């Protein structure tokens, strides 16, 4: 079977690129997903949508994505549970506060309504915070969260309605480049595509290797858990870049929380009891009342990391595009990133210049270091 565009990976990035291609008129698109949409990192992520970044590029991608998230439920026809309860970022030291003040100036200049707040103001937003553990905070009321499982599902269904073919349980096992087309071998037969997109998340490196491209990406486990639902306690995400913890009550009433840990590169997605102890210690330090909450379930997913924790976006060989290495913040910038990727594939100039995120920055030594990443 032949298609104009083949996308490897049915996570939010792959499905959203497929949807945007179809929306822009390119409907001859196939998505290869070795399990089912949302089985990988998207369906395991922390669900947060944050615009409070320290680099202009990330602020623009995040701001553009929030604008899309704000109307995505009606656009895709599925309630993706997008809520804008804000993000509250704890500052623990004077040095951190100085960095946050610089971040807020940049964010404000780009139309992101964040601000530095005092401990007292933070306690008005989240009365359960322990005032002993932080000296100030930043807050952006238009940050929020969405349900990643439903967002991924909604993009996949909307893409299918526009004519995209989504092949579940179809693993690409080999790629050959012949006369300007890519011939793909899968467990469900062979395919030919004119353009190929690597949106394989945790498996970006082995997928690129099949095309003969060496990506500087690697994967590492990040663990996460969910509590039993409780009546509404607060609406915002609380995060700390010191411990790497993030805590958010979702519309269902449960809290989803995770924490950065030292991990070896690899593909392990098992859960550990050490993580439970680590989270229990840190969450009860910033939110003492959490001792009474119960853990229902824990799981893990892969961060696909790059040397500077920023994604790699663009065309790396004629007709071979990558949207990989999101380093733990792929879900929140997926809507805008996917729109830009679809335009690049179709030769339309996007409204944000993403050339600083190209693969060759690593050869040139032009790494972009973002001060505000978790883990």
């Amino acid at each position, binding site marked *: 079977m032949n298609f104009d565009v083949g996308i490897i990976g049915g996570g939010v990035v792959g499905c959203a690129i497929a949807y945007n291609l179809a929306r822009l008129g390119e409907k001859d698109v196939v998505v290869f997903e070795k399990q089912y949409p949302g089985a990988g990192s998207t369906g395991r992520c922390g669900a947060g949508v944050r615009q409070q970044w320290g680099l202009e590029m990330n602020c623009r991608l995040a701001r553009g994505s929030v604008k899309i998230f704000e109307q995505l439920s009606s656009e895709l026809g599925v309630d993706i549970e997008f809520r804008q309860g804000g993000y509250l970022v704890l500052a623990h030291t004077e040095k951190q506060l100085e960095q946050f003040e610089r971040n807020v100036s940049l964010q404000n200049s780009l139309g992101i309504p964040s601000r530095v707040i005092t401990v007292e103001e933070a306690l008005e937003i989240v009365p359960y915070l322990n005032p002993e553990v932080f000296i100030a905070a930043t807050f952006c009321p238009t940050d929020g969260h969405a349900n990643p499982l439903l967002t991924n599902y909604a993009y996949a269904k909307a893409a299918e309605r526009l004519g995209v073919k989504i092949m579940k349980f179809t693993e690409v096992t080999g790629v050959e480049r012949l006369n300007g087309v890519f011939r793909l071998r899968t467990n469900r037969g062979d395919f030919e595509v004119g353009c190929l997109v690597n949106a394989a998340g945790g498996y970006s490196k082995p997928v690129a290797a099949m095309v003969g491209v060496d990506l500087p990406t690697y994967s590492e486990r990040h663990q996460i858990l969910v509590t039993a639902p409780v009546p509404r306690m607060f609406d915002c995400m609380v995060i700390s870049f010191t411990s790497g913890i993030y805590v958010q009550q979702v519309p269902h009433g449960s809290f989803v929380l995770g924490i950065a840990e030292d991990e070896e590169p690899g593909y392990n997605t098992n859960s550990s009891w050490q993580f439970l102890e680590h989270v229990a210690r840190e969450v009860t330090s910033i939110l003492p009342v959490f001792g009474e909450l*119960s853990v229902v379930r824990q799981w893990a997913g892969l961060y696909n990391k790059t040397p500077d924790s920023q994604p790699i976006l663009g065309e790396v060989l004629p007709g071979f595009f990558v949207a990989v290495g999101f380093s733990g913040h792929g879900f929140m910038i997926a809507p805008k990133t996917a729109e830009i990727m679809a335009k690049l594939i179709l030769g339309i100039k996007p409204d944000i210049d993403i050339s600083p995120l190209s693969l060759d920055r690593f050869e040139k030594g032009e790494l972009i270091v973002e001060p505000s990443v978790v883990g």
Partner: protein
Amino acid sequence: MEKSDDDIIVCRCEDVTLGEIREKIREGLTTTEELKRVLRVGMGPCRGKTCIPIVRRELSRMLSIPIEDVLPPKDRPPVVMVKFKSILEGSEK
């Protein structure tokens, strides 16, 4: 027959009806893992003890797959709900 029992709640933790499960199977979901992610069926404190056997039976019946080939979703820890303070008390011992 199908119509009359669509209102039956099969996942009591997350309020999911048989009708909702059937609708998503008709939309193209073919595994318990997908139904769990989209409908939350089996995500509650009982860990799917009641609903997952019913979901498997429904997938088997509607898609004509032998029930032994309809796998349950992955079991995830902890086995029973546990409070953060109990985890902390346990780790101090």
